[in-house]
Each structure stands twice: as C-alpha cells, then as structure tokens.
C-alpha cells in the first residue's frame, strides 16, 4: 500500500535541494547503519526524511497513550529530540524504526502517567469471548457450539463501501474505544503495518502477550465493523 509510511522499502522521495541522486538517497535510507552515520554527521536531509516517514505513525500511537492531540504532538517532538540525544548510543540491536518507536512509546507512557493515565501492557484486558456466546447453538442443541446464524459474506460488499470514509471512521472509532494496550498493538500491526517482532521490540512485550492483545483487539473491531456493515 503506497500510503504506508511504516514500510522501509516504500520510502518517499527525499525532499532535498541537494543534487544527490534519488537512487543514492534511497539506498542510504534502506540501511540503518548508513542512516545512523548520516544522522550522527548532522545530515539534515536524512533527518527530514525520517521525520516525514515516521511522525504521522508516531502521532497516532502517542495519541492512544495520552488521548489529547496537542499533548501527543508534544510527545512526538520530545521523542525526536530523544532520538537525536540517543543516536550516539544506538547500537543497532533493534532496527532504527523500532528503536524510534520504543522512544515514542516510552515518552508517551511517561506523559500519560503525568496526566493520570497509565497503559499497563501486562494487563491484557478482560477475558471475553471473541464472539457473543448467543451467536452459537447451546449445549442442548444437536450441534452445540456451532453458528446459530452464519456471519455474512463480506466478499459481496463492494470495495467502495468497505473502504468508504464512513467505514474507515467506524474502524478508527472502534480502535479508539479499545483498552489502550489493545488499541496500540492493533494500530501498530494492522493500521501501520508493523510485523509482530517489531511491535514486541518497540513495546517491550512478549510475543504471546502481543498476540493476545491483537486477538482481542481484532475480534472487537471485526464485531464493530459487522454491526455497521450488516445494519445497512
């Protein structure tokens, strides 16, 4: 998807007045080592490109911790300052991307605590069935635990409706309603397109917890989407 900024192979052309060849810049951006070297050397074009590439995703994540748009913007700014201050110590044990997101996540977490909120990733949220139990046949039925009525076939829904602004707004709203840890994980995985390892690394959570949070989040967002799409 072309609008995914989280994909390192899909870097946008650098806005740069230099005469440097785009292909050279692309190559540079594909390698963390080269990027970090350029940053340490004070290369503003590289910094500008990183800011362009990640700030919107950072803002989206920060907002799930602090809930206020203006505070989230401050968190993003603080995070970039943190990146600059920490770049000398970056050792490449994580990718530059996950390292940046670990910084924004930690800054946002600290800020959330100051605002009287906290986002504990050890709390996976209440253990609830992924689908309401009344959607399934009861124990006295001939086929207990099977669908009472099948979920509808979304392949029949035209793409214009699935991807309509209103549908996307419903999904965004459903994500915002989730417990924060679930909202953050589904946002990084499904909205921003991070892979599981990147999320675990950035949020410093176990693979198992990441998967439980993702499962609960996706199940609820699916349900919200179902309520919206099937109501029409």
């Amino acid at each position, binding site marked *: *998807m072309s*609008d*995914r*900024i989280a994909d390192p192979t899909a870097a946008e052309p650098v806005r740069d007045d230099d005469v440097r060849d785009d292909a050279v810049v692309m190559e540079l951006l594909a390698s963390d080592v080269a990027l970090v070297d350029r940053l*340490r*050397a*004070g290369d*503003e074009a590289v*910094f*500008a490109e990183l*800011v*362009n590439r990640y*700030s*919107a*995703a950072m*803002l*989206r994540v920060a*907002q799930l911790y602090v809930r206020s748009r203006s505070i989230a*913007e401050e968190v*993003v*700014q603080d995070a*970039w*300052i943190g990146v*600059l201050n920490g*770049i*000398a110590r970056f050792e490449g044990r994580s990718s530059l991307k996950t390292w940046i997101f670990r910084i924004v996540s930690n800054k946002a977490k600290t800020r959330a605590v100051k605002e009287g909120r906290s986002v504990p990733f050890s709390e996976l949220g209440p253990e609830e*069935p*992924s*689908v309401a*139990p009344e959607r*399934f046949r009861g124990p006295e039925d001939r086929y*207990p*635990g*099977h*669908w009472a009525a*099948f*979920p*509808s*076939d*979304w*392949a029949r829904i035209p793409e214009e409706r*699935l*991807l309509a602004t209103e549908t*996307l707004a419903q*999904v*965004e709203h459903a*994500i915002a309603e989730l417990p924060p840890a679930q909202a953050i994980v589904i946002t990084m995985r*499904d*909205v921003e*397109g991070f892979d*599981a390892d990147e999320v675990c690394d950035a949020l410093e959570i176990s693979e198992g917890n990441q*998967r439980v949070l*993702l*499962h609960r989040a*996706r*199940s609820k*967002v*699916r349900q919200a*989407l*179902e309520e919206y799409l099937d109501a029409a």
Partner: protein
Amino acid sequence: MQPDPELTCAELVELVTDYLEGRLPDRERRRFDEHLTGCDGCTAYVEQMRTTITVAGRVPAPELPPELQERLLEAFRGWRPPE
C-alpha cells in the same frame, strides 16, 4: 491413536489470530483447516477477520501540523552531532 475431536465454531473463533499469524502447531492447524473445509460460517468469519485487517490498513494517517516539522528541523540545526 484417537482422532482429535472436531473443533466447534465457538472454539475456532478463539484460534483465528493464532491461525492467521501462523502460530498454530501443525496438528491444530490441520483441525482448523478441516473445520473450515466443511463450515461456511467459519469460512465467512475468517474472511471477515482478513477484511477487518485490510480495512484497518486503510485508515488515513493523521495530519501533522506543518509547524511541527519546522520546529524539528530547527531543533536539528541547533543540535550538535556527537563527537
């Protein structure tokens, strides 16, 4: 060896993320696939889950205030790279 009992639909919906993430052990994955083959309801459910993921990936990015980028570049100019 006793054959594994069949999955119910209510059980399958709890395994769908493990399935899509490729984290089900082989034997569980086979039970899952066998259930899907015979169940239109669960096939539709898994498809809904996939669609949910696709739609989530299309939620537009928040707009950044232009002055944020300006402030950051200014901060960068004032920053001294480490020796």
